């Protein structure tokens, strides 16, 4: 509890979103969202389906660029650079902002190759030894090393769902990002695997800034320090998770949390 008090005193904003709006063609999906994300902590985005939380998440690593009709307005500042500017190279950005997706999506390659792919394309390992170290370290940080250390050359698709998702986390970590974006990482997993990954996220927040989109309020309550509630593309409330779940200030938030809407 003393640790909490210390970090409360010095929250550092790692990411600042300023009036971010997203359009799919003519349809506006996100309306002028502004918030600051603290460094080295977990922030969650909650809200009913279609509220724009995943869209907002994808702004942080420019994955919305991949969708042809998508247009992002506004600024997202990290280390005093606006990520949304056309001058920023998405490839470079994604080496600093990693992503884990809803459905575990390991490449149909070996476990080793999956983790090694990111460092390889960015040239982070000078030789085989360094790569071995990166792979082992990433798997250890993802809590998967003990389970796969003897089957690094087996196909990744042979692992269980929870293991595959941890592999995807290891793969994202291997590139050494500052920020990890997680888009409903546990929705395809059973409760035990979900708990294991939530515990992992708790550990990881000491090293990474983590943004997690979740449709489970309970998960946001368990895992995150700060929570943002979205509804129909607007940011309704953003604050400490403890406050949001015991005394939300906005009655829309209250209604959602209590299960009265969406």
């Amino acid at each position: 509890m003393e640790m909490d008090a210390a970090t409360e005193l010095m929250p550092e904003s790692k990411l600042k979103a300023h009036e971010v709006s997203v359009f799919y063609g003519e349809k506006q999906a996100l309306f002028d969202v502004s918030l600051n994300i603290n460094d080295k902590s977990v922030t969650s985005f909650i809200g009913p389906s279609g509220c724009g939380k995943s869209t907002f998440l994808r702004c942080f690593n420019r994955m919305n660029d991949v969708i042809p009709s998508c247009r992002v307005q506004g600024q997202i500042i990290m280390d005093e650079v606006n990520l949304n500017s056309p001058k920023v190279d998405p490839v470079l950005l994604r080496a600093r902002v990693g992503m884990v997706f809803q459905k575990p999506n390991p490449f149909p390659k070996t476990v080793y190759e999956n983790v090694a792919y990111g460092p390889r394309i960015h040239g982070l390992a000078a030789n085989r030894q360094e790569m071995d170290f990166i792979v082992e370290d990433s798997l250890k940080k993802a809590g998967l090393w003990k389970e796969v250390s003897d089957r690094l050359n087996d196909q990744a698709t042979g692992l269980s769902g929870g293991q595959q998702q941890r592999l995807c986390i290891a793969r994202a970590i291997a590139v050494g990002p500052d920020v990890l974006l997680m888009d409903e990482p546990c929705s395809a997993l059973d409760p035990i695997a979900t708990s294991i990954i939530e515990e992992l996220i708790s550990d990881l927040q000491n090293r990474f800034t983590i943004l997690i989109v979740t449709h489970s309020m309970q998960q946001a309550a368990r895992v995150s320090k700060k929570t943002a509630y979205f509804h129909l593309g607007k940011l309704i409330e953003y604050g400490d998770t403890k406050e949001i779940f015991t005394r939300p200030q906005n009655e829309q938030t209250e209604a959602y949390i209590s299960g009265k809407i969406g």
Partner: protein
Amino acid sequence: MEDQQHISTAFDKDLLALNEMVQELGSLAIVQFETAIDALATQHMETLDQLISNDAKLDDLEAAIHEKAVEVIALRAPHAKDLRQVLVALKIATILERTGDYARNIANRTKVIAQAGNENIPGVNIGRMGQVAKEMLHDVMQAYCRHDAELALEVWRRDIEVDHMHTAFYKEVLASMARDPNLVATGAHLLFIAKNIERIGDYATGIAEQVHFLVHGAVPEDSRPKADRTSKVVGV
């Protein structure tokens, strides 16, 4: 705690913190009560004043426990034994805070008795009653710490002793007051003090019931053994 650990270490930490807070409150309450009983005999003014001001600490701690319990329920959505643990912590904290209030009340009345300066006070039994009640509190908090429903039940049955002692003391004070009208004021306070101690004995059994609920999921089936006959005393 022999219970299995949760996958989420934060959850374990929260429950542990809640537990520790309740135990701290328990220690504080027992100390307050102990001090009050001792001060009945010594009538040491400074001790009494200190006790009265200390009561604020218990209030604060009870508020903190309340806050923590709400947090655990909102954020962790506990079930089964975890849920009972949180609810029991809430209830026991309230009981302990009221115990502290009674201790403060005893101190206040002791001050008045001391200022009145009466030598002739029947007080033999009250010390003894206080002792029994204090032991009940101590044992029941042990039972809470160890999740020991057997010990709790045993404490639960001890309350009858306190009730008996209270009834006896009550009659004794009434007799004193009847003999010497000057003692009425002091006697009235003594009656209240005795009542407070008896209530504290009841509180200990309340805590014991909560411990039983925590361990077994239900309060004890038999009705609480009660032997307080003071409400039936008519004349001397």
